[in-house]
């Protein structure tokens, strides 16, 4: 098991190295930072001075090392677009995105697992067929279409819920939360549901497939042959086996939710990191783009590591060392 974790750690470092390299390459090669950062009427001499001041005349490896060093202490550069430190910009936007993703993930697990189990236990029942049909529709609806549809229905048509923004927020230190005010909660509903929809479908389909496999396995047949009560077999024995892969997929899903938050935040004008990123992409604001990439890369690595550790704790085959 330590072998597995070490392997994973090496992989994590590899991912981080790749991500920092891409971020650095973006920084260094996409557009000339000197041209972008100097005044319009700067003389060539002034530009060379700036180039030296930025360390852009040093060998590339040194520049990369310095870049990594700066990133490590949280210096992510200055946004081209609004001339503010990128780290600050990200920190302001972080709570909005994380709250959105956390709520969406909770919805996805809370609905996806029970629906998956239900349709695996009674695959022939009308509701299982219905769930299956709706789930196909779910994976066929792009997030932005779902979002626009929900806005048209609940915000424009019924006027029940707000269609954009976070509503009122409360500051807890540097963290701002929308979870503590009624308007914040109301604003959260549509974006969170929109974001969760795809994941609900995915988790539901995974749980259903896993559960069906497990129910057909020899050890469940053996449990049935020993006459154990059905609810016990289904919910205590089989469910635990079926949920093992869900751990991995949940980890991956958190990642994809953060990525898809870009779309949701665009549709709902939600002031999170995704909106910041998409604006940066359209303005070619490289420091913001690369910082976002670094942040998401780091988050991914952290999530994957957590999942691996969790898996190793939950699965006895890994816990005591695989043979």
């Amino acid at each position, binding site marked *: 098991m330590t072998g597995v974790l070490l392997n994973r750690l090496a992989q994590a470092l590899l991912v981080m190295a790749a991500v920092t390299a891409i971020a650095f390459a973006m920084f260094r090669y996409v557009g000339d930072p000197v041209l972008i950062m100097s005044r319009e009427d700067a003389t060539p001499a002034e530009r060379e001075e700036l180039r030296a001041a930025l360390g852009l005349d040093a060998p590339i490896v040194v520049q990369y090392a310095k870049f990594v060093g700066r990133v490590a202490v949280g210096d992510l550069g200055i946004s081209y677009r609004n001339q503010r430190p990128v780290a600050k910009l990200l920190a302001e936007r972080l709570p909005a995105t994380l709250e959105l993703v956390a709520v969406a993930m909770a919805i996805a697990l809370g609905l996806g697992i029970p629906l998956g189990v239900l349709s695996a236990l009674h695959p022939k029942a009308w509701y299982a067929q219905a769930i299956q049909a709706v789930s196909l529709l779910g994976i066929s609806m792009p997030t*932005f279409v779902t979002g626009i549809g929900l806005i048209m229905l609940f915000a424009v048509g019924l006027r029940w819920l707000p269609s954009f923004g976070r509503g009122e927020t409360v500051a807890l230190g540097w963290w701002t939360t929308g979870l503590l005010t009624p308007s914040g909660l109301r604003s959260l509903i549509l974006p969170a549901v929109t974001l969760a929809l795809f994941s609900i479908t995915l988790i539901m389909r995974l749980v259903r497939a896993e559960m069906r496999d497990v129910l057909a396995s020899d050890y469940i047949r053996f449990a049935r042959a020993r006459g154990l009560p059905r609810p016990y077999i289904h919910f205590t024995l089989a469910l635990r086996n079926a949920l093992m892969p869900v751990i991995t997929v949940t980890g991956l899903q958190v990642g994809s939710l953060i990525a898809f938050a870009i*779309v949701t935040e665009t549709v709902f004008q939600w002031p999170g990191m995704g909106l910041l990123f998409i604006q940066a*992409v359209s303005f070619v604001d*490289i420091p913001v783009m690369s910082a976002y990439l670094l942040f998401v890369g780091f988050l991914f690595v952290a999530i994957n590591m957590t999942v691996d550790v969790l898996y190793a704790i939950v699965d006895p085959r890994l816990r005591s060392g695989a043979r």
Partner: protein
Amino acid sequence: MTRIPKSVAIAGAIAVALIATALLAPWVAPADPTDIASYNLIDSELPPSFVAGGEARYFLGTDNQGRDLLSAILYGARVSILIGGGAVALAALLGVTLGLVAGYFGGWLDAVIMRVGDVILSLPTILLALLVSGLARALIPNAASASWAPFILIGAIAIHEWVQYARTVRAATMVEVQREYVRAAKVIGLPPLRILGRHILPNVMSSVLVIATINLAGAILTEATLSFLGVGMPPTYPSLGTLIRIGNEFVFSGIWWIAFFPALTLVIGVLAVNIVGDWLRDRFNPKLRSLA
């Protein structure tokens, strides 16, 4: 042989009809939306012909530029399908080749291919595609960006999707290599290329086709999302996603059709492909469920 369920047959028919109409758009569409001469600002934002205020000339109404929406959708679907299909073809070609090589030879080659795949897979499709297309836009001069856009999109989507093929084909290849018909081929002395092409490839193809079908739906969605976010096809050569992006700006003013019909077309098309893909997966390869 089990019979094809009715729902799958209908979905398949819809998918084929949609794809055929879209591909034939230049011959069947009433107007050419990429031709600036067809823009008619006087006719802009007309509702569909079956709604009060609509005109018979424009069955689904017009967009903000006065383009015929039906034509724009047909051309847009064509763009979406060509980009989606192109991305699937590129990803499949790359992924199957690398997967076969990794699975058959193993060793460092396998390790390198799979680690690169792991890194790529640890970033979601949409993020990677955004980065690639964002970077490409920064590197390519503005004037050329419109004509490059489809290829950038194909590359941006395929760069992520090939991993899925590579993983599946590698796993399948590793199973097949252990199977006795391949070992028999080795004992006969056949060279690796021949074993891969003549023996292993035909036996892993069914998985590839299943993934490709499901992937086509995914690739079309990704393209639509990118275009919706404004980093995909430009409004002058709109895909379905671009049309929805344009329409989204008018949703609040009650001009719903510009977003609605492209979105409907997109969802119906993707749903039809997904239904067929889902059935294929259950039928031919129930083990492939890790794909959405």
